[in-house]
């Protein structure tokens, strides 16, 4: 078992594996999204407090969850890469970031469009939105660092260090923002998330899985380009390029 997994740590093997898996994850994401949205719009009932506007949660919450989850995965691969010096780990981290940043931005955007009808303002400085904003900044920072460093190896490790420092800080940041928010009595209105209808929850979870598979598909697709770029002097890469 260990042996076969290590095989896939070689960029050449992973290149082909990722290529085969990407369509599966892509289609799975699509099917789950259709299912989730069907539940969200045609099965889930109208919310007692928020009317139909709450249906934004079926993309807002998955986007928010994914932006946080992907950041953790980036931190994980960064740690693996730094510990074992595996090139592929760093490449995966780089491949995940743009999708994570997109989800972070979307969670902000959809959060604003949910907030306006619900709380009367496009933006409120509540703990969750503010933390999401800072998470978005963290994504921007690490991507800016990667793009500023020409040497791929230096970029890999520098980005990895930054991702780890960020990951350590994220719980602290979240705690401090919650603290800040309760003290300043900001928007105390929370969406009716206290007791969620089971159907709504099911819809949200299915959409979350859809987002997850989408992220895997995009990351696999992106990492193949990165692998080719880095490995272009090897025989197997030249073969592919020559086709």
């Amino acid at each position: 078992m260990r042996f076969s997994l290590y095989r896939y740590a070689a960029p050449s093997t992973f290149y082909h594996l990722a290529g085969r898996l990407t369509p599966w994850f892509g289609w799975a994401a699509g099917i789950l999204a259709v299912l989730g949205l069907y539940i969200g719009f045609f099965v889930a009932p109208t919310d007692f407090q928020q009317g139909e506007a709450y249906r934004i949660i079926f993309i807002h919450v998955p986007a928010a969850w994914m932006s946080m989850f992907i950041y953790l995965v980036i931190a994980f691969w960064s740690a693996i890469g730094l510990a074992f010096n595996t090139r592929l780990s760093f490449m995966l981290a780089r491949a995940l970031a743009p999708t994570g940043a997109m989800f972070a931005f979307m969670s902000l955007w959809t959060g604003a469009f949910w907030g306006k009808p619900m709380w009367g303002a496009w933006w409120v400085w509540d703990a969750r939105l503010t933390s999401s904003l800072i998470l978005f900044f963290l994504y921007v920072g690490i991507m800016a660092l990667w793009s500023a460093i020409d040497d791929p190896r230096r970029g890999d490790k520098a980005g990895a260090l930054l991702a780890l420092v960020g990951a350590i800080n994220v719980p602290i940041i979240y705690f401090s923002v919650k603290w800040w928010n309760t003290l300043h009595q900001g928007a105390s209105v929370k969406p009716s998330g206290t007791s969620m209808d089971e159907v709504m929850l099911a819809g949200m979870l299915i959409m979350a899985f859809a987002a997850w598979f989408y992220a895997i598909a995009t990351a696999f697709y992106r990492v193949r380009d990165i692998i080719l770029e880095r490995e272009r002097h090897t025989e197997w890469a030249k073969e592919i390029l020559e086709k």
Partner: protein
Amino acid sequence: MEWSSWSQFWDMGGYGFYVWSSYAAMLLGIVIEVVLLRRGRQDTLRRLRRLERWEQSPGERPS
């Protein structure tokens, strides 16, 4: 959930603008990402092939 008509569906209880703007933005984000991915791949392949030819050609060594 029973929608009595399509217009009721689009209206979303008065919140149609907000709901559909959100979904449109999400869809746009995904579409843009996928387009960029495909274009990125083509660019990468083209660039790497060009680099390959350049490095192979005699008398021309990249700096």
